[in-house]
């Protein structure tokens, strides 16, 4: 019962008014926790509080008895309580409302109980009624303190919100109590709650003869004295609302409110206010519309200008009113500003030439008309009859006669006048009307006649409209995007009518597609027009897919897709290849069937270009090939999840790549650069990476067949002996090189489940080629040892054992004991026992990738590899020969390979087996070894390289590991920084190490050791502020110096002069960012120095 003993103590503390509020809060929390954990029950608490509950001391009783209990309940809101307990507590608090001394506790208690939500322990309606009654009768709200008043209002609010039925029973009493409570209230926060209470009351008693109605005059009197609200603008107060926000909020609210009125009051009662509302809507729209109409790509599918909240509400209201009562449209139609629009339109032909007022006029009126048209079919009919025909006349667009011919004016070619304003209005109307076409399901239910009117109007003009838009696009030149924009947007609007009853016939639709496609194919540079047309086509494509318009899909396929795909296939066309590819990939990804078609086209294009290169030596073709592959990797692969069936097509594509390479036996010309190989490798890797295991197997199988038919298998027969390896040069033919690289890429991308036919010979092939200097082969080796399941032992045998078994015959007897140790041939090559320097460095790089593969899967053999690499970092090998500096450098870089995340292979995307914490494990193995070697290093070069290796390990391990070992690591890091700062070659490594240091400075865990090493850290950082080779190093060093000010004053004060000197020098740094940091840092350090030296 230790809890109970503590309880007495805590109770004592809480009741004692002389103690501080923090004390009170603490004891309160302690009791609440024990209640929450059910160590203590409420009943027990009440029993324990017996003394405080019955004492004659008022203060103690009020605090102890009631406030404590109430606060407790506030804490326990989420805890389920017994219904009986809740019931008795409510009764208790209700009774205590009458006693003014304990009113705060009682109010808090009631509020806490009433706010309870959930299943167990709710206040019943009867209890709530009792609370309200007691409150109404015995609490004099206005005589209470501010906080208590607020509680009262909140309690009322809660009661009205949660127990409306109970409150209705109380009727008059409730209303009366509220009136009394509000009368004379002055505090704004309280008033805000009070106003809400009145609102709730009014909602509760809506009847015109109810209690609220009878008290209405009183209520009005109490509340109206607060209006008009005095809005005093105060600065610097976070809670205050700026005037603009307030007025915006009020406008939005009133528009919303008007909309609600329209919904609830019905047409007849709203009618007499129409004029007022109409002018208000107009004002709101004019005030909230800007004059900047964007002719950019992104606004092709949006209104083209910004819409604020007021604007949106005004539009909603207008639409609501028109939808409800068509006669409202009369006001719109008769409005002088709306009527004037045709004059405005015909005054200017270009949008830029318009005055701001005219722009506004055009934008707002087109908004008004399109919103009204969108409201209902009838309104749309009216608008089209009244305005559209007139607009067409203004624009000089003629209708076709019943026979289908156009009614020609005297000179039909120039009769259309492309007024921008008019086109905009026209597009807005067309866009609005297209939403009114019912979707195909409800098509049958709506009477045809209802929508015929506007449909037939559009139909009558459609041919000329399309012509007008087309001529707008075609007449546009590069420096003016408005023509192109309006033209394309118009065509898009015409092309987006849904269903069979569309006013645009199929031939017209096809004409739109042809126009847009011709824009794409005719342009030889990436103009705005080109991009707009492409976007419009993509929009139409996705629209067709969305509404399952099979007929239109066929047209789209025939006109757009096939046209573009045939362009990809043909090698001679005016359009640059990357643009064709972009257009094709964008357009075709709108529908799976198009994708299939496109990948087919890509395949054919790849094959023909590739063979064209092989046979004719056309370098343009191979360039096209690389662009095509890049398009596949950059445009298609990222959208794999969005497009159905893409995976299958891509796998097919990969296999045809292999087929093509297989059939092109002779390469008459050499490659021009590595671009194509790189692109092909990337594509292959990624396709294999995303393919299913079965598809992976089929690709690998295919690739393996190609390999077997090439001259590569000859390499497998090269014995892994020193003598044989020494003779190796990079002497593969272009074709073999391509095949090898592609195969390596396929292996890198494969998942652990994929099966490899002949692991041993593959490993051998990759071994030999990696020693020939093909990095991708080394990466493939790493991937294989990382992912192989049962074949791992065999693979490792091949890599390590066999190499030594068949290797140097002098020391191969006991080599089976060491797995990857220094006795194997690979290790010996790495250590420079045999062979040229080239062979040595390649072997080291190869070993690093193999090590990475093993490390990531958590294989023990990596320790041996690490050992070999560390040996390479010593300046001499075990037989006393000095190692070449380049070998040392490669060995140091091997640690970067091991620890860093690679983009190219061995990552999640390529299904690598990754054991958690592998970096930490490697860190704990290697750091102690490297540290001891640094201490004993014989030459400066070796010491530097050891530091580089260590820096790679430290800067790639998660920062928490560093923070746990700050004490041990900090001296090494500092030494590393000073060693690495000597040579510009290590600047990147230096920077990453400096970032590690800066990480330790700010963390609480490292603070102690940072404080201990302050002098060395400052010395090091001061030196780095003038590091000439990398700006970010200087910048970070100065930032670190500023951070150090968080250390205890006595630790850093002695270095003030030194730091200020260095930072002052940095004020004259050639780079601006460094200077900016220096200013901040200097300011900060100056402030700790004495007042007597202000600068």
């Amino acid at each position, binding site marked *: 019962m230790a809890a109970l003993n503590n309880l007495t103590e805590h109770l004592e503390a809480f009741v004692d008014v002389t103690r501080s509020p923090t004390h009170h809060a603490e004891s309160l929390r302690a009791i609440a926790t024990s209640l929450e954990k059910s160590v203590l029950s409420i009943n027990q608490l009440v029993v324990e509080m017996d003394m405080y509950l019955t004492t004659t001391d008022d203060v103690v009783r009020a605090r102890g008895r009631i406030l404590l209990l109430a606060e407790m309940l506030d804490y326990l809101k989420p805890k389920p309580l017994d219904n009986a307990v809740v019931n008795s507590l409510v009764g208790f608090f209700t009774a205590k409302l009458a006693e003014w001394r304990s009113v705060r506790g009682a109010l808090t208690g009631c509020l806490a109980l009433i706010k309870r939500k959930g299943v167990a322990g709710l206040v019943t309606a009867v209890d709530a009624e009792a609370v309200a009654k007691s409150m109404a009768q015995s609490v004099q709200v206005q005589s209470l303190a501010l906080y208590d008043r607020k509680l009262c209002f909140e309690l009322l609010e809660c009661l009205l919100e949660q127990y409306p039925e109970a409150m209705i029973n109380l009727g008059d009493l409730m209303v009366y109590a509220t009136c009394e409570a509000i009368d004379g209230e*002055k505090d*704004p926060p309280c*008033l805000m709650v009070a106003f809400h209470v009145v609102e709730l009351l009014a909602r509760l008693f809506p009847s015109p003869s109810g209690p609220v109605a009878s008290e209405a005059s009183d209520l009005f009197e109490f509340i109206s004295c*607060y209006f008009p*609200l*005095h*809005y*005093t*603008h*105060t*600065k*610097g*107060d976070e*809670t*205050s609302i700026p005037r603009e926000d307030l007025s915006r909020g009020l406008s939005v609210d009133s528009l919303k409110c008007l909309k609600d009125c329209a919904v609830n009051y019905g047409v007849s009662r709203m009618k007499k206010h129409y004029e007022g509302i109409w002018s208000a809507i107009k004002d709101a729209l004019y005030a909230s519309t800007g004059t900047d109409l964007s002719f950019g790509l992104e606004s092709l599918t949006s209104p083209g200008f910004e819409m604020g909240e007021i604007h949106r509400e005004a539009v909603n209201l207008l639409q609501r009113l028109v939808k409800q009562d068509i006669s409202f449209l009369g006001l719109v139609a008769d409005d002088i500003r709306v009527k004037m629009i045709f004059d405005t339109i015909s005054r200017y032909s270009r949008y830029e030439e318009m005055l701001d007022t005219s722009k506004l006029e055009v934008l707002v009126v087109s908004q008004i008309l399109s919103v009204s048209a969108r409201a209902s079919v009838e309104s749309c009919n009216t608008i089209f009859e009244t305005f559209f025909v007139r607009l067409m006349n203004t624009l000089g667009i003629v209708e076709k006669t019943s026979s289908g011919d156009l009614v020609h004016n005297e000179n039909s070619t120039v009769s259309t006048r492309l007024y921008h304003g008019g086109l905009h209005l026209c597009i807005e109307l067309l866009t609005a009307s297209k939403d009114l076409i019912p979707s195909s399901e409800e098509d049958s239910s709506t009477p045809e006649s209802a929508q015929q009117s506007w449909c037939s109007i559009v139909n009558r003009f459609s041919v000329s409209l399309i012509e007008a838009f087309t001529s707008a696009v075609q007449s546009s030149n590069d420096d003016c995007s408005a023509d192109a924009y309006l033209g394309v947007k118009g065509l898009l609007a015409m092309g987006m009518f849904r269903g069979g009853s569309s006013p645009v016939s199929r031939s017209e639709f096809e004409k739109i597609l042809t126009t847009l496609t011709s824009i794409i194919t005719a342009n030889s540079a990436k103009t705005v027009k080109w991009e707009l047309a492409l976007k419009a086509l993509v929009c139409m494509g996705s629209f067709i897919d969305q509404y399952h318009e099979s007929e239109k899909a066929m047209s789209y396929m025939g006109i757009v897709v096939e046209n573009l795909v045939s362009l990809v296939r043909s090698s001679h066309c005016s359009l640059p290849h990357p643009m064709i590819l972009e257009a094709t990939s964008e357009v075709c990804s709108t529908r799976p069937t198009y994708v299939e078609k496109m990948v087919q086209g890509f395949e054919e294009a790849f094959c023909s270009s590739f063979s064209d290169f092989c046979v004719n030596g056309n370098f343009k073709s191979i360039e096209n090939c690389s662009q095509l592959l890049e398009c596949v990797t950059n445009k298609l692969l990222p959208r794999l999840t969005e497009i159905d069936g893409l995976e299958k097509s891509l796998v097919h594509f990969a296999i045809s790549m292999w087929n093509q390479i297989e059939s092109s036996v002779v390469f008459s010309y050499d490659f021009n650069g590595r671009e194509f190989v790189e692109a092909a490798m990337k594509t292959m890797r990624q396709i294999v990476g995303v393919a299913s295991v079965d598809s992976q197997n089929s690709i690998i199988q295919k690739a393996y067949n190609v390999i077997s038919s090439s001259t590569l298998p000859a390499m497998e027969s090269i014995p892994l002996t020193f003598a044989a390896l020494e003779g190796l040069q990079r002497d593969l033919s272009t074709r073999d090189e391509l095949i090898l690289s592609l195969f390596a890429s396929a292996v890198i991308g494969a998942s652990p489940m994929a099966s490899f036919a002949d692991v041993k010979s593959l490993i051998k092939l990759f071994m030999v080629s990696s020693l020939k200097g093909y990095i991708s082969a080394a990466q493939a080796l790493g991937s294989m040892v990382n992912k192989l399941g049962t074949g791992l032992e065999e693979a490792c045998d091949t890599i390590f054992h066999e190499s030594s078994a068949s290797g140097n015959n002098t020391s191969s007897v006991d080599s089976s004991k060491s797995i990857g140790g220094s006795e194997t041939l690979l290790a010996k090559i790495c250590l420079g026992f045999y062979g040229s320097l080239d062979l040595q460095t390649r072997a080291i790089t190869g070993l690093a990738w193999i090590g990475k593969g093993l490390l990531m899967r958590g294989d023990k053999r990596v320790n041996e590899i690490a050992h070999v690499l560390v040996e390479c970092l010593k300046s001499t090998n075990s037989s006393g020969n000095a190692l070449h500096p380049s070998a040392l450098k490669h060995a140091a870089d091997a640690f970067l390979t091991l620890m860093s995340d690679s983009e190219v292979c061995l990552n999640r995307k390529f299904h690598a087996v990754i054991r958690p914490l592998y970096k930490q494990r490697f860190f704990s193995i290697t750091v102690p070894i490297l540290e001891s070697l640094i201490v004993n290093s014989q030459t400066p070069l070796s010491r530097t390289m050891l530091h580089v290796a260590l820096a790679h390990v430290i800067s790639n391990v998660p920062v928490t590991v560093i923070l746990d070992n700050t004490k041990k690591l900090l001296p090494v890091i500092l030494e590393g920084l000073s060693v690495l700062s000597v040579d510009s070659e290590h600047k990147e490594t230096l920077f990453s190490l400096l970032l590690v240091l800066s990480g330790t400075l700010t963390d609480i865990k490292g603070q102690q050791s940072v404080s201990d090493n302050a002098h060395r850290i400052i010395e090091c950082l001061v030196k780095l502020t003038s590091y000439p*080779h*990398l*700006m970010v190093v200087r910048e970070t060093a100065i930032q670190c110096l500023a951070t150090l000010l968080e250390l205890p004053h006595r630790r850093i004060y002695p270095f003030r002069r030194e730091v200020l000197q260095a930072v*002052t020098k940095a*004020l*004259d740094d*050639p*780079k*601006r960012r460094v*200077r*900016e940091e220096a*200013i*901040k840092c*200097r*300011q900060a350090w*100056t402030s700790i120095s004495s*007042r*007597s030296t*202000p*600068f």
Partner: protein
Amino acid sequence: MNWRITPASSSSIKLLSLPLIELRQSRYFYFSLENLLVVCVRGKRMVSGLINENPTVYERKERRVRTDSTNTDEFSVEPIDQLEIFDILFFDFAIVNIHHIRDIRDPEHPYSLEQLKVLTEDSVEVDDHKSYVRVTFTPTVEHCSMATIIGLSVRVKLMRSLPPRYKIDIRVAPGSHATEAALNKQLNDKERVAAALENPNLVEMVDECLSPSFE
């Protein structure tokens, strides 16, 4: 000598005017500047504190944005220029919100030195090769007693932020101040500046001017 003005008794607070007013009424600020005594009471329109009751407020000029931020050449030199000096004066350590300056204006409208056109970007002349910078500021009224403190703050700020090789010249715009010549002399006299900065009260005031503002 400092003397204190007690605030006028608080009149009844208008409803919904937020409680900040009450808070502000209890704050006083007094500064002494050499022999000149300025007393301001924060938040109250005290005649003694208001030197210019109705300042003209200008539209804040669109800040010129640096375009060469993508400069990736490690060894190219970026000389100190006009904009950089202006940024030093306005960006991080905002004189923008010097409380004093604002308080002697209408406290309801906290305009910055920039908005009042006391300092503009064009008023900064700099020559990195010759290590020379000149800042010309324009007090809002001819007899502005705060001109000295503004000038001193600008000078201290630049002394702290520019390399020591720079010669700093602070001037009042010609014809903008009653005691223009005296002021210029005072602001550019090494001895007098050094002497002024040995006055702890003055240093405190300058530091407050230059302390970063968190609004």
